[in-house]
């Protein structure tokens, strides 16, 4: 049996006046449906004692509430709690919040401005209305001889997320940011097993779609004299915490260096070659514009993941699919359903494809691209069976217009709403 820093019903000292009061969930094997958790997870919560009161930072999943309360009671009485901070409202952190608010009637709850309206999804805010304070960067909660400072770090990975900084001990309570699903009773990063894969996996699945926000948060966190990072899940990072911050900086940086030009990717899949020839025409049209790096890929030639990596760095994405049984084909949907792993908001998108009967694939792909928050300013092209000369010309024009949009050189259009389908 592994040695343990965690004993039943006891808090664990993290820094002077700071204790871990969370819960371990070693048997969990999948989290939020989408994440595999080979080592389970922990729900980290903390108690911070100041001369004028105690702060509780985050809670645990509801089913672990009793163990959380027992640990809390080992270091503080409920009447001492003046401050409750929720860095993130997801149920694995807020599960014990309503009960904590009842048990600690003198406590004020501090959440981000974005979290404030979300609270009504957790409990009837009327019950605690007068005890809730919305905070942003620079706001503080006073514990007497020490202060908690709030740092607004939205979209890591919900709109409500924030970090809390305790300068007195150099401790950053980072919520999900810099955390991972890795349960180990040794608790601290210099004592637990090798959790690097969990750290990277967590970044890839939780933080990567928000990497622009990751970079903004790092800008705020990097200047801090960090001694300990106390995340909402996984090991507490007390040994070289800055190493993890550096790793996030590297992971969130654009991976293509030296590419000054805009990039336009044409993906296609083709049963008899017609959609492939359309794709070649689209690419040729984009190439005519110049100043755009144009690439052509057969979706059949790869698993989705390498394409997802390419797409993350690209500026425009065009998808060609035949229509089979009234739908775009499965490899196209496999790729399009993988794009929630990266940030594609605001990129340019378009669709094209050959069909035999009704040609639904093109509008279906356009709809999906819009739902992924891409801009789709140029209407797609579809061709029945083998494209005609005019249809190939339309494909070249689709590529050319998309490239022009990418460069901000598209002609301003004036259209009537009634003419739009």
């Amino acid at each position, binding site marked *: 049996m592994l040695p343990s820093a965690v004993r039943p019903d006891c808090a664990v000292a993290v820094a002077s006046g700071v204790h871990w009061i969370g819960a371990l969930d070693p048997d969990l094997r999948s989290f939020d449906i989408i994440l595999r958790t080979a080592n389970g997870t922990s729900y980290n919560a903390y108690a911070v004692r100041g001369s004028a009161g105690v702060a509780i930072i985050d809670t645990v999943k509801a089913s672990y509430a009793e163990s959380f309360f027992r640990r809390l009671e080992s270091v503080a009485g409920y009447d001492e709690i003046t401050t409750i901070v929720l860095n993130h409202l997801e149920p694995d952190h807020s599960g014990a919040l309503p009960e904590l608010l009842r048990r600690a009637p003198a406590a004020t709850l501090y959440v981000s*401005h*974005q979290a*404030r*309206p979300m609270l009504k999804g957790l409990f009837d805010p009327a019950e605690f209305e007068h005890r809730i304070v919305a905070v*942003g960067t620079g706001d503080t909660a006073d514990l007497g001889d020490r202060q908690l400072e709030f740092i607004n770090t939205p979209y890591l990975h919900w*709109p409500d997320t924030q970090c809390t900084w305790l300068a007195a001990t150099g401790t950053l309570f980072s919520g999900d940011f810099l955390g991972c699903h890795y349960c180990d009773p040794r608790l601290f990063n210099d004592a637990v097993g090798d959790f690097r894969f969990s750290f990277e996996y967590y970044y890839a699945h939780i933080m990567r779609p928000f990497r622009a926000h990751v970079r903004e948060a790092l800008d705020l966190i990097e200047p801090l004299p960090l001694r300990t990072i106390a995340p909402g899940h996984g090991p507490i990072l007390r040994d070289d915490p800055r190493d993890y911050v550096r790793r996030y900086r590297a992971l969130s940086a654009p991976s293509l260096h030296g590419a000054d030009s805009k990039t336009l990717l044409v993906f296609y899949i083709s049963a008899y070659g017609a959609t492939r020839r359309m794709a070649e025409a689209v690419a040729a049209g984009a190439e005519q514009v110049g100043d755009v790096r144009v690439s052509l890929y057969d979706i059949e030639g790869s698993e989705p993941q390498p394409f997802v990596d390419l797409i993350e760095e690209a500026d425009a994405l065009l998808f060609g699919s035949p229509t089979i049984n009234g739908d775009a084909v499965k490899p196209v949907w496999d790729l399009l359903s993988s794009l929630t792993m990266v940030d594609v*908001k*605001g990129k340019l998108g378009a669709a094209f494809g050959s069909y035999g009967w009704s040609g639904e694939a093109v509008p279906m792909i*356009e709809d999906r691209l*819009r*739902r992924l*928050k*891409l*801009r*789709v*300013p*140029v*209407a797609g092209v579809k061709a029945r069976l083998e494209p005609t000369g005019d249809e190939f010309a339309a494909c070249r024009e689709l590529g050319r217009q998309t490239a022009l*949009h990418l460069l901000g050189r*598209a*002609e*301003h*259009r*004036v*259209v*009537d*709403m009634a003419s*739009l*389908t």
Partner: protein
Amino acid sequence: MPKATVTFEDIGVTVTVPAGTRLIEISEKVGAGITYGCREGECCTCLTRIVSGHEHLAAPSILEDQVLKDNLAPRHHRLACQAQVLGGNIVVKPA
């Protein structure tokens, strides 16, 4: 029926629309970068910057006002799923 124009700066398109149309309906049809989530004025996904002509939009409801406030929306920003065009010329871009 009174007409208005809405220009989407991000894609360089001006659309002539009947009064009463909501911004999101136009954005969807023209393929601009204003996207939506709940479409019911709650999630703030469709937050839109009104570059000019904000006075040509119907005033925000109490609900929209509250959501804009909760999300710290800057001045002259609206929810595209709620904002109705009244007339005149309006220029917008994604927030």
